[in-house]
């Protein structure tokens, strides 16, 4: 069949296409009321590396909404992690915390970065780490340093070393991209002339499940980011959509129409062991596991309007979870299992809602009106989402308390959508 052969050739060419580096640009709007002032001195000798490590550490910490980097006068000589710290002097500059560091080149052509963190208020040395790195590991190293500082000062893990996945649409071209959490260093994992939706990270961060329409219908793939190999997880008659990983990475929950309607099934990532979980005449879709693996939250219109339900992850009687409003979709559970984020329609606006699963209180945390696909940061502090601004698809991140927002758009134009925040990487 000639047409099929041609389109097959075409697709393989597409999949092999460009790995050019792209970039998302970031704009921060709003801020938390109390931001910890922190002084991050330039690292002595860091000019040997680009970009500047101290600048990335500062930008990371400021993006969390919890820190404010202080402007510093030229320091001569630049103090390093080995210097004696004059706490009174840094206190007079209004710093609550201080980061000092240095970069040295090694005989083997690599570099060594050392840093030390100080609590200026308590006059306490909070220690630091030394890293050996090559020139192309500057960003990754700076993100590690920011994670260390964040964890020491807030008591919770930082997410600066994590990655995000999202889809960029430019004209009729779709690209599934992976970038650092700050939008830098974007790489294309898949390019296609047909839509790609619903990327979902495996718990170990090595694979993405997603839905691709390259066969003129939705098919669920599992794509290894290490070697670019992909595997069909679900390609049954009808539509195959909405993949979600179980916390142990062994099972995918999906929505399939193979037996009519859209119903929730589980299947192994290699396509084996198919099991049907729901039996309704409704649309049952968007399954998500709770972090403890015990529950599956999902969207269903079995009650007449789309609402969020949950059932035991092995199947069982569903219970309704959302009650306010006539359109509540796209459930995502916070990493600690306490909050449910979803998209609620209010007076024609689609916004991110946050439901406290203990006290049942609902809060709308965005002020945009076409929000989609919320995604928790692995530490639960921020929620990444897709929205539309000025007719253009952009990503937005909002703190879980709704106070702090930032926007990521494609620097090279196009619509950005379908974000998924990846897990912590060991």
């Amino acid at each position, binding site marked *: *069949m*000639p*047409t099929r*052969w*041609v389109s097959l*050739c075409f697709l*393989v*060419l597409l999949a*092999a*296409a460009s*790995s050019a580096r792209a970039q998302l640009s970031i704009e921060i709007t709003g801020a938390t009321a109390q931001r910890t002032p922190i002084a991050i001195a330039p690292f002595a000798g860091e000019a040997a590396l680009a970009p500047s490590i101290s600048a990335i550490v500062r930008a990371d910490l400021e993006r969390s909404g919890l820190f404010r980097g202080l402007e510093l006068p030229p320091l001569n000589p630049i103090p390093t992690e080995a210097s004696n710290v004059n706490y009174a002097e840094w206190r007079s500059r209004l710093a609550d915390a201080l980061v000092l560091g240095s970069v040295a080149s090694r005989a083997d052509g690599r570099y060594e970065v050392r840093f030390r963190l100080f609590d200026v208020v308590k006059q306490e040395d909070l220690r630091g780490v030394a890293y050996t790195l090559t020139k192309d590991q500057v960003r990754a190293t700076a993100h590690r340093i920011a994670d260390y500082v964040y964890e020491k000062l807030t008591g919770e893990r930082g997410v600066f070393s994590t990655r995000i996945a999202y889809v960029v649409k430019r004209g009729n071209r779709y690209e599934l991209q992976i970038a650092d959490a700050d939008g830098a260093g974007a790489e294309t994992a898949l390019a296609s002339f047909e*839509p790609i*939706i*619903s990327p979902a990270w495996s718990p170990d961060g090595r694979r993405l499940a997603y*839905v691709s*329409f390259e066969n*003129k*219908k*939705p098919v669920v793939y599992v794509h290894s980011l*290490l*070697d*670019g190999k992909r595997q069909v997880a679900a390609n049954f*008659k*009808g*539509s195959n*959509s*909405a993949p979600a990983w179980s916390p142990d990475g062994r099972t995918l929950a999906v*929505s399939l*129409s193979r037996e*009519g*309607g*859209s119903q929730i099934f589980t299947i192994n990532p290699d396509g084996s062991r198919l099991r049907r979980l729901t039996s309704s005449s409704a*649309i*049952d*879709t*968007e399954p998500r596991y709770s972090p403890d693996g015990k529950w599956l939250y999902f*969207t269903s*219109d079995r009650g007449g309007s*789309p609402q969020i339900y949950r059932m035991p992850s092995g199947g069982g009687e569903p219970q309704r979870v959302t009650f306010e409003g006539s*359109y509540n*979709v*796209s459930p995502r559970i916070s990493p600690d299992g306490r909050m449910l984020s979803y*998209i609620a*329609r209010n007076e024609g606006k*689609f916004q991110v809602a946050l439901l406290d699963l203990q006290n049942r209180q609902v809060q709308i945390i965005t002020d945009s009106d076409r929000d*989609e*696909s919320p995604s928790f940061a692995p530490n639960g502090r921020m929620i990444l989402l897709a929205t539309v601004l000025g007719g253009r698809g952009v990503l937005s991140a909002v703190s879980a308390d709704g106070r702090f927002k930032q926007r990521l758009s494609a620097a090279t134009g196009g619509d950005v959508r*379908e974000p998924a925040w990846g897990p912590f990487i060991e």
Partner: protein
Amino acid sequence: MGAKLKATLTAILAAGVLAACTTTPEEQAPAGVEGRKPGATPPSAVQSKPIPKVDVTGKPAGSPFAQLKDPNSILSKRSIYFDFDKFEVKDEYRPLVEAHAKFLRENPSAKMLIQGNADERGSREYNVGLGQRRSDSVKKMLSLLGVKENQIEAVSLGEEKPQCTDHGENCWAKNRRDDMLYNGEY
């Protein structure tokens, strides 16, 4: 993966695929057609008699499949539109679905893919569900009209392939639709 390795793999893959693609039968020159040298004088515009047309692009002429592309045949019409939040086939589309059912019954080798679509509002995945409900509804009607299960597949494209990309009811109405495609067309 190292950038170099990736680039090499990409190149090898692309070269292999290109080589394979150039042997596609479609690209062979049809027999009996004169290959004109570049720069040769074009033939006179005045023709004494019409040139017989040889068409090897589709099914042989006279095949029942020709009707599917004939603008005068109802079978060339392939879209069914739905009202907001509605999934049943409206009466005005019954003759169209019946004509396709008759064609599928009479041509057991014909296969149909029904692609359901939804407008852009709301969740992409829930919209896949809404599009599926629309394609399932045409599939069910075809089944009731005697078409065999193995001839039809109902799928959804959700909101991903809009016919109209503006925002507003006029446009959304065009996107709440089913498209019927026959084998060879998808």
